[in-house]
């Protein structure tokens, strides 16, 4: 692995040396006792695509927030195009030619594309001239960079991929020369992600500088010229992308060798445990989120549900887990129907052998201010093993149980008295997983098992899921990470717009075909 300090491979000018677009020198930032950034120096050449990788909490977002003026660094300095620049808020950042596309878009939902682009950059008291000017500019940008969006479309009506383009347009409209993208592909289909990368390459060809924050190593390999790796608030390496490999990057991120593949023996599929027939769900506004979904899950198999976020997978998990009532259809466990009325709750599902690792562990899976031993009993706190007479809880039993779970699932630090929020994402997920797996369910529902989880823990979590399958349990896996679905599933269903768009076996399909299904296109129709 060759480490370079100066990355000028983006463009090598023949004449005078071009100063780097971004130069961070000795940036440190602490939040209370947490040192989020520690003496970070980084140089990004003008006209380069520079990746920043690191596990959750490694300090990537903090660093970029300092560059964009959201936070003030405790020490250190910033040079933009060789000029020392003081960035105290986002206005300074915009003035210095820095634009940022956040992970969660900052768009006004009921405004048009044009209005969103102009918002905050109006050139006068009257709106009309600003809009007219923006319209022309938008047209030019669209042609130049493949950034075509209908300027009069309302944000809430366009897809996530288009919304992201609006964010990029906003930055370019403000004359951004440096564009920071924070986890831009998390919400995109593979095809949309490819389009985004084409846009980024176009931008680069026009001399723009791009900083890409991501945890997907493949994207780094595909699109960047150079990459910086962060670990625990420090920058551990800056490498030319062409000289490295995903395995090397993963090692630099985690600090040890990691297995990127899942070790999975062939499935021993048994009889059907859970059958879902014509399941329908309406949200609180009466909009149908699940439209007559049917499937069956067998013992000893992992059934993967692929799809872009927001196509009904979350609702499917929540209905099966007893959090939302269904508006129609039925669910059979071992041939016996389950009570789907409003009265039935998550407790009833657990009694029927359905355990649930929810998509959002902060919101649902854990009570963040609860101690670990309280969290490992969550949902099972009324079981006889945790109960004493007169309504008292058997806290001794809960504590013993938590200790065992922490040991078996390698949850660190192994102190059951620590509250959930003091653990890292991976260890939090292991707490949830330990609780649900050890409840010995017939069916395990599991949503986004490795979202926000460090690479080291991903390995472990995947292995636990496979082990559970090999014990003859049925697993319903929902993930927006297509890699994860492909690596773990024995059978794949693709959801689009609340329906099952198609079923594939992982060995007979590829990312391209799944990507089309995720976008609502039936590959057979295209031929």
């Amino acid at each position: 692995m060759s480490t370079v300090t100066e990355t000028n491979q983006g463009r090598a000018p023949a004449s005078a040396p071009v100063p780097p677009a971004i130069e961070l020198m000795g940036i440190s930032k602490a939040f209370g006792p947490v040192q989020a950034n520690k003496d970070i120096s980084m140089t990004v050449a003008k006209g380069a695509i520079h990746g920043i990788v690191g596990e959750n909490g490694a300090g990537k977002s903090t660093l970029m927030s300092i560059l964009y003026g959201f936070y003030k660094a405790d020490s250190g300095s910033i040079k933009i195009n060789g000029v020392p620049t003081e960035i105290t808020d986002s206005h300074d950042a915009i003035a210095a030619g820095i634009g940022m596309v956040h992970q969660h878009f900052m768009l006004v939902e009921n405004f048009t594309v044009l209005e969103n682009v102009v918002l905050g950059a109006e050139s006068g008291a009257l709106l009309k001239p600003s809009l007219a000017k923006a319209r022309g500019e938008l047209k030019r940008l669209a042609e130049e960079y493949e950034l075509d969006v209908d300027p009069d479309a309302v944000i809430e009506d366009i897809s996530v991929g288009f919304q992201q383009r609006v964010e990029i347009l906003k930055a370019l409209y403000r004359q951004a020369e440096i564009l920071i993208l924070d986890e831009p592909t998390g919400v995109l289909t593979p095809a949309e992600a490819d389009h985004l990368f084409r846009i980024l390459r176009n931008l680069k060809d026009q001399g723009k500088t791009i900083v890409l924050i991501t945890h997907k190593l493949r994207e780094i390999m595909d699109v960047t010229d150079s990459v910086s790796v962060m670990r625990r608030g420090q920058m551990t390496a800056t490498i030319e992308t062409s000289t490295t490999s995903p395995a090397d990057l993963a090692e630099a991120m985690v600090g040890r060798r990691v297995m990127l593949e899942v070790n999975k023996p062939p499935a021993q599929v048994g009889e059907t445990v859970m059958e879902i027939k014509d399941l329908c769900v309406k949200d609180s506004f009466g909009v149908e989120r699940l439209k007559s979904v049917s499937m069956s899950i067998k013992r000893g198999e992992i059934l993967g549900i692929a799809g872009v976020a927001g196509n009904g997978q979350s609702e499917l998990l929540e209905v099966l887990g007893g959090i939302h009532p269904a508006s129609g259809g039925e669910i059979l466990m071992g041939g016996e129907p389950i009570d789907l009325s409003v009265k039935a709750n998550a407790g009833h599902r657990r009694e029927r052998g359905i355990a649930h690792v929810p998509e959002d562990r902060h919101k649902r899976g854990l009570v963040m201010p609860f101690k670990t031993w309280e969290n490992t009993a969550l949902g099972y706190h009324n079981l006889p093993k945790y109960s004493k007479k007169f309504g008292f809880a058997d806290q001794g039993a809960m504590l013993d149980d938590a200790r065992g779970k922490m040991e078996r699932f390698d949850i660190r630090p192994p102190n059951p008295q620590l509250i959930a929020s003091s653990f890292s994402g991976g260890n939090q997920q292991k707490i949830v997983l330990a609780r649900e797996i050890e409840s010995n369910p017939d069916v395990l529902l599991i949503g986004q098992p490795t979202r926000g989880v460090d690479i080291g823990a991903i390995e472990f979590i995947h292995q636990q899921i496979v082990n559970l399958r090999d014990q003859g349990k049925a697993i319903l896996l929902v993930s927006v990470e297509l890699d994860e679905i492909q690596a773990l599933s024995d059978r794949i269903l693709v959801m689009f717009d609340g329906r099952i768009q198609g079923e594939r076996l992982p060995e007979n399909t590829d990312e391209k075909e799944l990507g089309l299904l995720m976008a609502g296109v039936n590959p057979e129709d295209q031929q």
Partner: protein
Amino acid sequence: MNNAIPKWVDIGLIPLLNLLLALLISGLVVAIIGESPIEAVKVMIQGAFGKFGIGYTIYYTTNFIFTGLAVAVAFHARLFNIGGEGQAGLGGVGVALVLLAVPWPHWTIALLVASLAAMVFGAAWAAIPAYLQAKRGSHIVITTIMFNLIGSALINFLLVGPMKAPGMAPETSVFPPEAAIPSLYDMFAVIGVSFDKHSPANISILIALLAAVFVWFLIWKTRIGYAIRAFGHSEDAAVYAGISPVKIIMVAMLISGALAGLMAVNTVQGQARHLVLDSVLGAGFVGIAVALMGRSHPVGVVLAAFLFGILYQGGGELSFAMGIPPEMILVIQALVIMFTGSLENLVRVPVERLFFSLRKGGAA
């Protein structure tokens, strides 16, 4: 990895600093109106702890423990019960009804029955807002505060109508002497210690302390307490865990209302010995400040209730002895509430910073 500040800082030092700040500003206000702050503090302390004052201080403390615990229990389910005033008032109605209806043979039985009645009436008055919140989503802050007004109107009606004693005043008849519970004077007399004979403090202080112990067990040791806390921290996680929000809202509010209602044993049965208008005298609202300052922990609530008892009694003395207007007491109380409640981070953040930098220095 432990990012938490130690407990003694969290529940000891920070509230103390808040209190000192509040008193400092109060002193400034006293100085501005031309009185000596030091003299004022002296008068307050003497007023609260003197031979005649201490009984009143304990009496007020008892009230505030009940209402403070009531607010604290609801807080644990993230419910803001500001209906303590009405629930305690209705508790008084319950006490008066059972004590007037039946001539109870002995004070122990009378105390037991009156306590039960106070709890049932207080809980019932909390049940309606709780039901509206649980089933209809009507905000409990709005409904409980409206139920204070309704409760007060209802008591007015009862005291000029069905429950009115013969005579001019809107009040019930005096309870039979068998229903009188021992005052602190009676209790101390048993062990041969003399205590102010005219002090209103009575055996209810023991009930209040028992209630605090009960709340501690309830919240931290029982399964329903577990469910209440889980719901209070995260409704989403509670629903995921199969905990019914409707049930938790109802249970927490019923217990909360019952605790507020119990206050009537102290005021109506213990002190007044008949039901009068305005028997609660704002204790329901003070309970909010007490729960805030006590961080919803029974020990904190008892300590905070004692503090407010001192402020109440000492403050009364202040206006009596120094001619400082009684509104000043409200100002001081408001400052305490402001500093311990809404301005808490004013002290918390710097103290946490200081603490972490000290620790970092120590570790390095």
